């Protein structure tokens, strides 16, 4: 009798076919399981891609605190230069940049893709703006005090402090990323539970068969193998679907985000799902499916009735 306990490559192929056969026996239940896994895997995936897009929304210079000084419309060039020099001499000021109304309108129309925008106005509705960048370690009190002082200046229409907004955005983003990680951990646990539960049901249904395999000298490894492949296949199916969801979600979230990012002067190229974002759910799904099934595919034998 030519016997090998493990059966090699062939045994795995047969177990895979056997697993497919079992999946086909109850397609509705198993597709539902795959769909649940796909949705769970897609949740952190889509969130992550979206957060990465939002990250780009926060302009790099907003990382350092800044003040936008909107100037009176009738202020003349020389007065503006003077004000710029004055501000430059203030404590903590890193850079002062003059964005004239003309340049502002031109940039806006270019970025928005509306070339006819510039021609639509008889007079430029935009004010001249001084963008004041402060040193990154400038304390909030100092910048607020400077902003208040500038607001009192007759050449200034109004002042916007940029510091609060970008810092809050960044905090929210970090919080969001942490939440996604917590979500991912919960999803991992949930998928293992789902697969474990499904496998246990499957093994329980096949109890008589497994006992029989045991009785005729099949190894438990042989008996378990189809169920582990079932988990692997379902995990792979769920992961594949999840990759599809992530791609779709990235397209849906990415398109409006890209437009926003372009408005903010960033390139916007990194928005959308990369191959890694799509591969990850597939790999994780397959691994978790296999792991969950392996954990659950414990069997015992029956006795004579």
């Amino acid at each position, binding site marked *: *009798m*030519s*016997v*090998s*306990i*493990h*059966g090699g490559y*062939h*045994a795995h192929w*047969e177990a895979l076919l056997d697993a497919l056969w079992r999946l086909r*026996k109850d397609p509705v239940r198993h597709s539902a399981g795959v769909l649940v896994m796909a949705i769970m895997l897609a949740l952190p995936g889509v969130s992550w891609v979206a957060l990465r897009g939002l990250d780009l929304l926060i302009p790099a210079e907003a990382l350092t605190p800044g003040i936008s000084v909107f100037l009176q419309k009738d202020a003349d060039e020389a007065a503006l230069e003077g004000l710029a020099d004055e501000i430059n001499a203030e404590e903590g000021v890193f850079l002062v940049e003059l964005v004239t109304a003309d340049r502002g309108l031109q940039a806006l129309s270019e970025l928005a893709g509306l070339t006819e925008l510039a021609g639509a106005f008889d007079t430029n509705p935009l004010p001249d703006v001084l963008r004041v960048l402060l040193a990154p370690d400038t304390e909030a009190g100092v910048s607020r005090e400077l902003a208040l002082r500038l607001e009192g200046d007759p050449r200034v229409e109004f002042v916007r402090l940029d510091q609060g907004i970008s810092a809050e955005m960044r905090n929210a983003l970090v919080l969001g990323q942490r939440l996604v990680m917590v979500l991912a951990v919960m999803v991992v646990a949930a998928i293992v539970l789902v697969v474990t539960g499904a496998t246990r049901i499957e093994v329980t249904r096949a109890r*008589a*068969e497994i006992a*029989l*395999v*045991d*009785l*005729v*000298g*099949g*190894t438990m490894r*042989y*008996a378990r193998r189809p169920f582990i492949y079932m988990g692997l296949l379902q995990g792979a199916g769920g992961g594949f679907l999840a990759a599809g969801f992530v791609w779709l979600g990235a397209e849906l979230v990415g398109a409006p985000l890209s437009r926003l990012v372009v408005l903010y002067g960033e390139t916007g190229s990194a928005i959308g799902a990369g191959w890694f974002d799509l591969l990850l759910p597939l790999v994780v799904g397959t691994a978790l499916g296999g792991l969950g099934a392996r954990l659950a595919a414990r069997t015992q*034998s*029956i*006795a*004579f*009735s």
Partner: protein
Amino acid sequence: MIEFQNVSKRYGARVALDDVSFRLDPGEMSFLVGHSGAGKSTLLRQLICLEAPSEGRVLVGNFDLRRLTPEQLPIYRRKVGVVFQDPQLLMDRSVYDNVALPLQASGFDRKAIPHRVEAALQQVDLTELAGILPSALSSGQRQRVGIARAVVHRPALLLADEPTGNLDPDLSKKIMKLFTQFRNHGVTVLIATHEQALVESQPFRVLRLDGGRLVEGQ
């Protein structure tokens, strides 16, 4: 072939086997008889290592069943065929697949499986029904499928627990004839039954259990 040395089996306070000792020679065919509850199934369970005895030793061929490692257990079981009262067929698999199961499960040479299954089905006269699901078979046919499955890997030892319990006398006789044929091919056969009439019609050795004690055939 088989040797029981002072084997006892207790389930809590209940004694199912009480100091049972006997030997069976290779190629011998014997009946294990006794009333319901006498301990027949318990004795067979010891022989296929579904349970360990509370006391004593069971030897089969070169195997000391108490000493089998988890790796040796499947190898031992591949030398044993088992027939049940209810043949325990997989109802969602064809007759062929049911009979092929022991070979597939034990990593038997893939290319040799069809031939072996064919031969086993031929022995129980079921070659035409290979592609059919068991639900379409009569109880006698199902039992024959169970027997084909028990012998497809050509075991040295064939155990049967009430194999004719669900069958009418005519079918029972046919099944007994099958077991005799296997014996004639050198297989050691041990058949547990509580049907006295079945035993009386056969010229084979009888081991009689009563309340877990072996009272005849030591």
